[in-house]
């Protein structure tokens, strides 16, 4: 069975906790173990961080797709009409964030389409189906 959960919210630092809670709930439901649930919670946080740079405004659209033991998450930034789009962050932080994603998920990437930035990741549960 495929679950698809979408979350749309203002690109605000204080609301990232919702992305983390949703990530942890989806991972639990997918049978991820406690360590993997925490990994996904952190990875989704890192995915979203780059989209909520201070002053960027706009909204985040976060999609979680679960298919058996595989979870795909994408976080897109919808700029405010007439807004400046998302700002490019501190390179040290970007590097730390990339190292965290490298360690915690199977695949991750970024793309830009029609001026909208998006980051995505994919993580497979280690344990076999019960």
């Amino acid at each position, binding site marked *: 069975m495929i679950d698809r959960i979408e979350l749309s919210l203002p690109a605000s*630092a*204080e609301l*990232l*906790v919702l992305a*983390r809670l949703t990530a942890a709930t989806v991972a639990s439901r997918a049978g991820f173990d406690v360590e993997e649930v*925490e990994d996904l*919670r*952190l990875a989704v*946080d*890192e995915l979203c*961080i780059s989209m*909520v740079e201070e002053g960027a405004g706009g909204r985040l659209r976060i999609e979680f797709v679960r298919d058996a033991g595989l979870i795909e998450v994408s976080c897109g930034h919808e700029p405010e009409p007439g807004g400046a789009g998302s700002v490019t962050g*501190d390179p*040290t*932080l970007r590097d*730390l*964030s990339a*190292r*965290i994603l*490298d*360690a*915690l998920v199977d695949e991750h990437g970024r793309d830009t389409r029609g001026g909208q930035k998006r980051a995505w990741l994919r993580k497979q549960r280690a344990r076999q189906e019960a």
Partner: protein
Amino acid sequence: MAETFGISEKTGDGVSVVSATGEIDIATAPPLRRQLEASIDRGPAVVVVDLLGVTFMDSTALGVLVGALKRTRAAGGALRIVVSDTRVLKVFEITGLTEVFSIFATVEDAVRG
């Protein structure tokens, strides 16, 4: 659910201990950065960052600690980190920062050095 992030500081004998509790993320890292800058700028020989009560931290939190390390060194002091939770330690490990920071298991060990 309650946003339980908190910061406290204890100073004495040339040592400042800054304790953080709860989740350090992009929303709560800025107050931690301001507290660390204030503590470092008072010029203690040692600044201890106690993360024993921290339940979650991400790259923004690491960025604050890296900035604090540079600032302490520039001021001729030392920065020491206290971590015991395996999840929190994992964030340092996967970013290679266990090589960069002096990490201790208890505040007493960190104060002693």
